[in-house]
C-alpha cells in the first residue's frame, strides 16, 4: 500500500465515520393521543426533545421520551394551554454531541417549537444549549449534571450563567460527587479508592468532584484513570490499579462501560464494589456485568418511595408504554410540565408569537411546581433548588434504594 493510498483511505474512512452517525429515528411512541374537546383554534405549539432514543443509552432516553409524551398528552386533555394543541417532537441524539447539535438546529428552525426537554448527557447539552439559547427556546433537562452548564466555566469560583434559557431539574455533580464520596467513605468505610472516568463532560466532572470530597474526608485516591466510552477491554486499567490495593472503585461515566468494568474487576480478583453516579443507575448495568454490592447515587428520590410520584407511576402504567420510565422518568415528567405550565402562564388567553418567548423564560424561571419529584423551583442560575439524592445498591438484577438524603454542603 503506498503512502498516498493510505492518506486517501484515511480520508474516506473519516468521511464514513461521519456518515454512520447520521441516521435519525423519528419515533413518536405509543400514547393516549389528544382525543379531547379542547379549543385548539389558535394552532399547534411544539415541545421538542433531544435524547438518545437509540444507541447504548436508549434505555434511559426512551423512558424520557415516554414520560414527556405522557405529560404532553395530559396537558392536551386538560386544555392546559388555552387555544393551542401541543405536539411532541422527540429527536434522537444517539448520545453524540454532533447529532444532538443537528437535532437542536432542526428543532430551533421550526417557529412552533417553544421548548425542549433534554438532553440526557451533559456533553450533548453543551452543544444543544447554545443553539436553543440563540433562538430563545426554553430547555429543561432532567438529567444533565455537569455544573458548567448553569454556572459557567468557573463554576466553583466565579459562577456566571451562560444560557438564559437553560434550566435543569437534576442536581449537579457539585452535589452528586461529594454526596457519593460521603456515603462511600463515611458509611461504607472505604479508604483507598481508585477513580476511573470516561473523559466525557459528565464522567470527568463527576470524578473530579468525587475525588476532591473524598480527599477532604481523609480517604486516599490511589489512582485516577481514564477509559474510552466505547472500550470493552479494561484489563490494562485494572492491572494498573490492582497493585495499589484499592478497596473501592469510583467510576464517572455510564453503564455501558461501568457494567463490563465491574465484571472485569471481579474477573481480575478485585472483589471490591464499584460506585458511580446517576449514569449507571439502570437495570442494564447489572445485565452487562454489574455485581451485587455495587453502588450508585442518583438525583432525586426513588419514584416508588415518593408519594408525589404515585400518580405519575400509575398514569405511566395506564398509558402502556413499551419501555420502562427508567432512571429519569419522574424528573423528565416534571421537566415537561415546567415547560407546559410556563407556556400556559406566558400565553394566558392570548396568542403565542416570538415576543412571548421572553415571557415563557420568565415564567419558567418563576416556576413553583408541585411535581412528581417534589417541589420544583429554580435558583438564579437555572439550577433546581431541590438537592435530594439517593444512594442505590445492586440487589438481585437491579438497583434498589439504600438511603435518600439532602446534600448539606461539605
Amino acid at each position: 500500500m503506498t503512502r498516498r493510498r493510505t492518506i486517501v483511505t484515511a480520508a474516506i474512512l473519516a468521511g464514513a465515520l461521519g456518515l454512520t452517525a447520521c441516521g435519525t429515528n423519528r419515533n413518536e411512541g405509543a400514547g393516549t393521543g389528544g382525543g379531547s374537546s379542547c379549543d385548539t383554534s389558535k394552532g399547534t405549539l411544539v415541545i421538542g426533545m433531544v435524547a438518545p432514543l437509540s444507541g447504548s443509552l436508549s434505555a434511559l432516553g426512551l423512558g424520557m421520551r415516554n414520560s414527556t409524551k405522557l405529560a404532553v398528552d395530559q396537558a392536551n386533555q386538560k386544555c392546559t394551554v388555552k387555544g393551542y394543541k401541543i405536539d411532541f417532537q422527540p429527536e434522537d441524539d444517539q448520545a453524540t454531541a454532533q447529532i444532538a447539535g443537528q437535532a437542536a438546529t432542526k428543532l430551533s428552525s421550526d417557529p412552533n417549537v417553544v421548548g425542549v426537554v433534554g438532553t440526557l448527557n451533559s456533553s450533548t447539552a453543551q452543544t444543544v444549549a447554545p443553539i436553543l439559547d440563540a433562538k430563545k427556546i426554553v430547555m429543561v433537562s432532567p438529567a444533565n449534571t455537569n455544573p458548567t452548564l448553569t454556572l459557567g466555566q468557573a463554576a466553583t469560583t466565579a459562577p456566571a450563567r451562560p444560557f438564559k434559557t437553560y434550566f435543569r431539574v437534576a442536581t449537579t455533580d457539585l452535589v452528586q460527587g461529594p454526596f457519593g464520596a460521603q456515603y462511600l467513605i463515611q458509611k461504607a468505610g472505604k479508604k483507598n479508592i481508585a477513580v476511573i472516568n470516561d473523559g466525557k463532560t459528565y464522567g470527568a466532572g463527576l470524578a473530579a468532584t468525587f475525588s476532591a470530597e473524598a480527599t477532604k474526608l481523609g480517604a486516599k485516591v490511589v489512582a485516577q484513570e481514564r477509559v474510552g466510552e466505547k472500550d470493552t477491554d479494561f484489563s490494562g486499567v485494572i492491572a494498573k490499579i490492582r497493585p495499589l490495593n484499592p478497596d473501592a472503585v469510583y467510576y464517572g461515566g455510564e453503564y455501558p462501560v461501568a457494567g463490563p468494568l465491574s465484571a472485569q474487576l471481579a474477573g481480575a480478583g478485585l472483589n471490591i464494589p464499584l460506585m458511580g453516579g446517576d449514569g449507571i443507575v439502570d437495570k442494564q448495568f447489572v445485565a452487562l456485568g454489574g455485581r451485587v454490592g455495587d453502588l450508585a447515587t442518583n438525583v432525586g428520590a426513588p419514584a416508588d418511595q415518593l408519594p408525589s410520584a404515585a400518580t405519575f407511576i400509575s398514569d405511566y402504567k395506564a398509558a402502556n408504554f413499551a419501555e420502562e420510565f427508567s432512571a429519569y422518568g419522574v424528573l423528565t415528567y416534571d421537566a415537561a410540565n415546567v415547560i407546559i405550565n410556563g407556556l400556559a402562564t406566558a400565553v394566558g388567553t392570548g396568542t403565542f408569537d416570538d415576543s412571548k418567548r421572553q415571557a415563557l423564560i420568565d415564567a419558567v424561571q418563576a416556576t413553583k411546581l408541585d411535581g412528581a419529584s417534589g417541589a420544583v423551583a429554580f435558583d438564579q442560575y437555572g439550577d433546581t433548588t431541590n438537592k435530594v439524592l439517593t444512594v442505590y445498591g445492586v440487589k438481585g438484577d437491579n438497583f434498589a434504594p439504600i438511603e435518600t438524603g439532602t446534600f448539606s454542603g461539605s
Partner: protein
Amino acid sequence: MLSTLLSQIINGLVLGSLIGLIALGYTMVYGIVQLINFAHGEIFMVGAYGGLAMFSYLLPTALKNQWYFALPILLIAGAAVSVLVAVAMERLAYRPLRGAPRLAPLITALGVSVALQEAVRVFYPNATAALPFPNIFVPGTLIIPFGDGIPIRYSAMLLVVVSLALAFALNSFVERSRMGRAMRATAQDPDVARLMGVDPDRVIVLTFALGGALAGVGGILYGGLYNTVNIDMGFQNGIFAFTAAVLGGIGSIRGAIVGGLAIGLVKALGGQYLPGGTAYDYVWIFVVLIVVLVFRPQGFFGETERVRA
C-alpha cells in the same frame, strides 16, 4: 513492579491475539485481490451476534450451562454466520467490481460496513444498545501466585490458544495444501495462475470464507471474554486489526499475528508506563505504526509493493 509488568504483558497478548485473528482476514483478502476490505470488522461483529442468536433462541436450555457443548456449537454458529455474510458480500458487492478501479471496491467496502452495522442495529432485537453475552467457557480467574498475583481469566486463555492454533492451521493450509498453493499463486500473479488452471473465483471465495470463519470465531471468543457485544465492536477492533495487518506487512499471515501481538503489547504497556496513562494508550499504537512505516514502509514481514498492471 514485576507482577504488574507480567499482568500487562498477558493483557497485551490476549488483546493482541484477538486483533491478530481479525487481521488475518484483512491480510489474506489484500494478498489475493489487493482490496482493503473495511467491512471485515463487521464480519467479526455479525459472527458475535450470530453466536448470541444461537445461544438465545436456538440452543436448548439444558445445554446452555455446559460449556463443552455450548462452546463448540457457538463457535460453529458464529463462524457459519460470518462465512455466509463474507461470501455473500464478495458475491454481491465485490465481484461485480472486479476489474474496476481500486477506489470503487474500497468505497464499496465502507458502504458494506455501514450497511452491515445498520442491518444488525435494525433487525437484531434490542441491538441498539450493548447486549450481554453469555459465559461460554470455564468461568472465573486463575491467579498466578507471583508478587501481587497475576490474574488470567480462563476465557482469555481460551482466546489466546484458539487464536494462535487457528493462525498456525491457516499458515499450514496456505503453505502446504493444494488450495493454499492456488491461493499463493493467485496472490503472486492472477493471470499466470489462471493460465495454470487455477480458478480465481474459487480462490477468492475461499479467501473470504476463511477470513470470515476466523473473524466469526473471534467474535464468539470476544463475546465470551468481555460478556458484552455491541454493534460498534467491529469498527473499533477492525481498525486495530487493519493497523496490525499494515504493521506486520499486509499480505503476510505471520505479519498479521505479529502485528496484532505488537499492538496488544503497545496498548497494554503504553497504558501502564508511558505518559498519559490509559487515556492515551490508543495514541501509542499509531505512534508505533508511523515509526515502523517510516523505516519499513512494507511492515515487518511485507514485501515491497510490486508494480502491477
